[in-house]
């Protein structure tokens, strides 16, 4: 059944049209390539805004109006099936917004501009694909395709240690995906035995706990089908989130990647992991998810505390923000594990809010790096890397303060709302974890403020005197994020309303198990 709208096709393939366009523009016309890419992402952004306006917020589940469904491979019953609901729409909006901003922030890229923008738009397309696919096979293809542009973007345009970071990122994610692939095929073959009657990859058809009574033999032991493959999927998604102990690729990838790529990594890519839980692991294996919820919550707690402690120990400011992402994604995991209305809403909102606030921080560090060409808070030889930036870069400092406090979860800014919701949810679930997680917040405040103190206050060190304040282009791309962070801190309902119905549906499914 196809809906009356082709919007999802348009938004998915628009970046690919952009890639083709970039390939046809001669290499030397760098500005044309930049403007074309910007134009392309702006169109994608416009389509997402149209999506938002046409979106019916009262309908839980997939919206029939947007549905796109064609047969792709009939032998395996694989469909080209796209759809959108209240969980994927915020992610689409976030992706469109961040990519437009990242194109603006990539204006200063000098090394083979053509390749950079082509790969960047390709990345955007594959990310849309992940968030829109409703066929598991299609989802998997996009999930993996995304690795290729990412590998090259980190490996070619990254920092000193870029190759190591790129390879590590690729191998780690590929490993997780392979386990997911085995699980996916197992689901396909098991689906004919359930009330579905046919083998299918359709995520919606597979959802709803159809596999919980299935058992399987392995080495003479009996395993629960759903528990075993939940673990497979869990590892696949957890590597992306990243959940401790699968997080070790993240600091390398974030630190070595160029600014725009770090923004995309932290802002969108990590959310693909948690989105995977919401779209696939939880609905397909609800009983197993409830069974492992405690485990997920504890892992989330480890993420929060461990990430925060690691962040505190960093002397490279980008690495500090990278670890803070690990910590913040822990909150999302907590919200997911709570499996209550508040917790889940908080988790999805936190995915969105973390996307905006961390993106701001990475962009700000990128801006600073373009001036200083280093990122040391304390250099390896013990001297200060930055000092007294406040007096030198007042406008920059104001934006930085907004981003930092949003990331910290200060009331009135976006991070607070989502974290509060998550705490509400997890409190009913497990009080010990709640109390311990609060310490994570405290450490979070500590490392951010400490970093701020060391970089922005104190005496102005000599080399900082040459830095110029943010220019018009930088203000232009920072301001939408500033607005989002402040607006959704005071008035989160625009985002909450989108997701409410869909999250409610998921929670009521989970509560049956």
């Amino acid at each position, binding site marked *: 059944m196809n809906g009356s709208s082709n919007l999802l096709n348009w938004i998915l393939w628009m970046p690919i049209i952009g890639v083709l366009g970039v390939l046809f523009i001669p290499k030397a016309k760098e500005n044309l390539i930049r403007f074309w890419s910007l134009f392309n992402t702006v169109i994608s952004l416009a389509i997402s805004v149209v999506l938002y306006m046409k979106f019916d917020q009262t309908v839980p589940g997939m919206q029939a109006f947007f549905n796109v469904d064609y047969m792709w491979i009939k032998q*395996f019953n694989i469909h080209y099936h796209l759809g959108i609901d209240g969980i994927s729409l915020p992610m689409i909006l976030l992706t469109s917004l961040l990519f437009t901003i990242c194109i603006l922030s990539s204006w200063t890229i000098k090394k083979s501009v053509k390749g950079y923008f082509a790969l960047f738009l390709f990345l955007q397309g594959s990310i849309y694909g992940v968030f829109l696919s409703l066929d598991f096979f299609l989802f998997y293809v996009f999930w993996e395709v995304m690795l290729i542009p990412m590998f090259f973007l980190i490996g070619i345009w990254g920092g000193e240690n870029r190759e190591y970071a*790129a390879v590590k990122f690729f191998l780690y994610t*590929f490993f997780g995906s*392979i386990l997911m692939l*085995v699980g996916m095929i197992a689901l396909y073959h098991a689906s004919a035995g359930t009330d579905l009657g046919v083998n299918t990859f359709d995520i919606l058809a597979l959802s709803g706990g159809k596999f919980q009574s299935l058992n399987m033999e392995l080495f003479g032991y009996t395993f629960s089908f759903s528990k075993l493959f939940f673990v497979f999927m869990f590892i696949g998604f957890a590597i992306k989130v990243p959940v401790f102990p699968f997080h070790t690729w993240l600091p390398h990838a974030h630190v070595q990647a160029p600014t725009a790529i770090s923004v995309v990594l932290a802002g969108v890519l990590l959310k693909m992991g948690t989105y995977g839980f919401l779209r696939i692991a939880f609905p397909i294996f609800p009983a197993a998810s409830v069974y492992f919820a405690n485990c997920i919550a504890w892992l989330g707690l480890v993420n929060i505390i461990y990430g925060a402690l690691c962040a505190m120990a960093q002397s490279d400011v980008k690495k500090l923000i990278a670890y803070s992402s690990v910590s913040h994604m822990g909150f999302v995991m907590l919200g997911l594990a709570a499996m209550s209305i508040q917790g889940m809403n908080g988790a999805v909102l936190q995915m969105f809010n973390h996307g905006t606030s961390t993106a701001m921080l990475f962009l700000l560090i990128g801006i600073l790096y373009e001036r200083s060409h280093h990122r040391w808070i304390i250099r390896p030889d013990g001297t200060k890397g930055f000092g007294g930036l406040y007096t030198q870069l007042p406008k920059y400092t104001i934006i930085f303060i907004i981003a930092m406090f949003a990331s910290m979860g200060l009331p009135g800014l976006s991070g607070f709302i989502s974290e509060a919701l998550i705490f509400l949810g997890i409190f009913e679930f497990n009080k010990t974890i709640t109390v311990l997680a609060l310490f994570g917040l405290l450490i979070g405040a500590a490392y951010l403020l400490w970093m701020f103190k060391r970089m922005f206050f104190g005496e102005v060190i000599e080399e900082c005197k040459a830095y110029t304040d943010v220019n018009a282009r930088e203000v232009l791309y920072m301001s939408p994020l500033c607005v989002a962070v402040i607006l959704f801190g005071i008035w989160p309902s625009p985002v909450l309303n989108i997701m409410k119905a869909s999250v409610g549906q998921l929670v009521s499914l989970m509560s049956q198990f």
Partner: protein
Amino acid sequence: MNLSYLASLSHYVPELMAVLTMVMLVFIESSYGRNDKKRSFFYFGTFIGLGFVLLSLFDSYNDHSTAIFTGSMVIDPFSSLVKIILVVGTMASIYLAKESKDIYGHLKPEFAIMSIGVLIGGMILCSANNFLMLYIGIETLSILSYVLASFKKNDEMSSEAGLKYSLYGGVSAGVMLFGMSHIFGVLGTIQFSGVSARLLELPTTDIVILLPAFLMFFAGVGYKIAAVPFHMWAPDVYEGSPIPVTTFFSIVPKVAGIAVLVRVSMIFFGSPGALQVTWVGILSVVAALTMTVGNVSAIGQKSVKRMLAYSSISHAGVMMLGVLVINELGVQSVLFYAVTYLFMTLVAFYIVTFVSDKYGNDHFDRFRGLIVRYPLMTVIMAMVMFSLAGVPPLSGFVAKFNIFGALVSKKYYTLAVIAGINSVVSLYYYLKLVRLMIFKEQESNEVIVGFGTANQTLIVAMAIPVLMLGIFWSKLMELTDGAVLFIAP
């Protein structure tokens, strides 16, 4: 139903055509003087001849399956599809040999003639329906291969390769023949259909006696496809031989060997029972070992050709996974894999050959910064590397997906996970090449002669299936779905 001799011949046109081509080429070649480098008529004859073989294969593809020559061979869609792969592989290798500098100029025609001989062996092999034909096929395939391996007469490595290949080959053929005679001794027939019928009614004690015989038989086939532990010869032979020969070796004998394995497994061990469980067990262990040893050994290689050689060992292991499923789904996935493997291997070896021709060796370092000089070739090479590792949306991924699907349908989860981890390992060394080509600074600005317009066009043409079969693979599925085995009564 036994077809008459003449009626049998009418089903045997592709093979006859190949034999005729080979004989014709011998005559054409002898008409040339030593100094005629171009030999355009010779190559014209080669490709026309093989083209006709291909056409007649396509033509007979949809004919109904039959057993010919009093049941000693079968012509079925399965064997026809495998033969098509073999012929395409041979044609591409001959063209590569013509373009490459790795083969001495005056030996190039001989390469063409002998590789067609190997091809005929391969064609017999995938149609063989009794042990005798199978043995003849393997020997035809092998004896000419020994010569091909030692083609660089003045090169120590190449002579070593030839000697090693023939020694190993001789021993394994002997072991295999012993196994076959043992099977004949117990069952009293060499006809495949007779063997499978007798196996069903055999008491368990006799089956126990037969098992070692089947193992010995497996040694012979396993040697051809370089399955661990019969793989020792492979890396040295692949490295010592000229690159076009390596290309040829990693496609034709390997795919033909896999085809035999498929036929034998399906006919002898198709029905469930103790025998099938044992056979599947043996194949599982061998396949898992083959993948792992191939991949782990490939990591440390300094020569790209050697790396590809080890990786082709591991790909044979993956194909064996499809074999051990022993059902239609498995056969289909093996065929699909073989088709995609053909294109990926060809493109990779073509590019390695031309780079190696320029520098005289194929060390990883020669590929540094290739993107600056030959962006198109580099992008294609990177694509093929990703495809070999099994990254979507490339055909290598779909091939692996099919194999995994066949495994999981039989609930062999452990094997699927082992295969999955292996593709992560393989990704590591494939990425090494991609990294060098794209992330590193170039060593020099020299022009690589082999990347002329014609050769680049050919490479692009062979790379298109690598991408397209990853996205639109419904048609190929239909083709492999129809390529059923015919089990002669």
